[in-house]
């Protein structure tokens, strides 16, 4: 059963990713990105990461993708006729070969590393959100604060960049 869900989420997310980079109209690309993000959140559920699932749906789908769609509607872009870069065909061949080699290496490697300190049973006892919260506010507090400062800087930067430039006040400039 889980294998079926995994196959569904994996195949649909890959297909949506391919559609995102290959569709012609930008709004269609954004909508297939929506499909991709939702199916990736389904993969998070399969990996027992419920909190990350919620964050993915709320932040990625609810905030970032809406921001993209908002800008697309604001700019009212037409779909380009020649929308691929001219050297696309030169990139595609090596990319497919390299990607196939990487996949071959990944599928034959056992990934048997050292285990960490939170086994699945301990996570299931108190819930994933509890485990993430305990870990975040004990070991990773500094990163958390840094991300907060980063988001503040990003907000200020976005406001400053997107503000309508004020016409110069010549009277005051002379003083």
């Amino acid at each position, binding site marked *: 059963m889980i294998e079926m869900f995994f196959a569904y989420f994996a195949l649909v997310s890959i297909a949506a990713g391919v559609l995102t*980079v290959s569709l012609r109209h930008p709004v269609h690309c954004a909508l297939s990105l929506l499909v991709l993000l939702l199916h990736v959140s389904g993969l998070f559920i399969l990996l027992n*990461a419920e909190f990350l699932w919620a964050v993915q749906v709320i932040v990625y789908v609810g905030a970032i993708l809406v921001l993209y769609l908002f800008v697309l509607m604001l700019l009212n872009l037409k779909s380009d006729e020649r929308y691929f870069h001219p050297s696309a065909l030169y990139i595609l061949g090596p990319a497919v070969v390299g990607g196939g080699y990487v996949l071959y290496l990944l599928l034959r490697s056992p990934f048997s590393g050292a285990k960490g300190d939170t086994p699945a049973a301990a996570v299931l006892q108190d819930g994933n959100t509890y485990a993430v919260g305990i870990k975040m506010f004990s070991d990773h507090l500094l990163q958390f604060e840094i991300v907060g400062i980063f988001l503040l800087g990003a907000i200020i930067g976005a406001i400053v960049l997107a503000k309508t430039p004020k016409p110069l006040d010549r009277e005051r400039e002379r003083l």
Partner: protein
Amino acid sequence: MIPLSAYTAVSAVLFMTGLLGVLVRRNFIIVLMSVEIMMNAANINLVAFSHYLESMAGQLVALFIIAIAAGEAAVGLAIIIVVFRGKISTNVDEMNLLKW
């Protein structure tokens, strides 16, 4: 039981798709969307390793990546709006203001 390599394979394919999108597409907004695809591929990888190697750190890094993606989207789209206001185009080939 799904092997860990299946998740890494999905993530590799998604990352490759996003990389191709960054290299191949000419619309700046689609390029940013491809960057989001790459970040999602990295997130799948981190969460899969976090689950299979029984450590919580991967999920935390994935959370931070989501936060950084939000900031990147906000600033990137603001830059797009500024460029679009001046040149009426979001084509990356025509954005050469900083080219020397």
